[in-house]
């Protein structure tokens, strides 16, 4: 019954070694979001896709990229992870980007550790 699935749940990488986090959804939603949540902080939106249209938040570092090859899957690529990128990464989906009308459904998150 899982609707938003994130793999892996825990990821360990080395400083500077590229890493990819995966998100898939069975809801057939148009929009997929990636959030970064550092310890004891609020989730922070990195970017989102509305279908194939990519929308980057202004303060998202260039080190973070995303791909959405089809409706069901979305990937978060961190090209050169730094120690400051250690966080929980949350994927979410909604039918449309106007969140005041549509609920966002969240996955369980991937906790990234950078050594």
């Amino acid at each position, binding site marked *: 019954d899982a609707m*938003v699935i*994130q793999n892996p*749940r825990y990821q360990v990488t080395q400083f500077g070694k590229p890493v990819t986090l995966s998100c898939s959804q069975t809801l057939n939603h148009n929009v997929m979001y990636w959030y970064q949540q550092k310890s*004891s*902080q*609020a*989730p*922070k*939106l990195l970017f*989102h896709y509305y279908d194939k249209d990519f929308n980057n*938040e202004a303060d998202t570092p260039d080190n973070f990229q995303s791909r959405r090859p089809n409706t069901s899957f979305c990937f978060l690529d961190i090209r050169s992870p730094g120690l400051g990128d250690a966080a929980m990464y*949350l994927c*979410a989906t909604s039918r449309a980007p106007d*969140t*005041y*009308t549509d*609920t*966002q*459904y*969240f*996955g*369980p*998150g991937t906790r990234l550790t950078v050594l």
Partner: protein
Amino acid sequence: AQSVTQPDIHITVSEGASLELRCNYSYGATPYLFWYVQSPGQGLQLLLKYFSGDTLVQGIKGFEAEFKRSQSSFNLRKPSVHWSDAAEYFCAVYGNTPLVFGKGTRLSVIA
């Protein structure tokens, strides 16, 4: 841009006691307000949301929240807390930018 403040980082209540989690927002126009819950190892789940109309909103799991424009608040309440309610609670606001979350309030429930 909008912002959200959750003044309480951590709250502990006894099982069966009532609960109120505070949320204050900053936004010039009518905001759209949400409460999410995050259990350990889980993603965020929507408890309830306010768009317009009745200022007292009912949600899942027996939670309710009241929108008070004069106080810029959207506090979450539950009359009787269960041990399974122990989790992190996030208030969020949508205004003219994508959803903005507060830093969360961690709820502990003791017997």
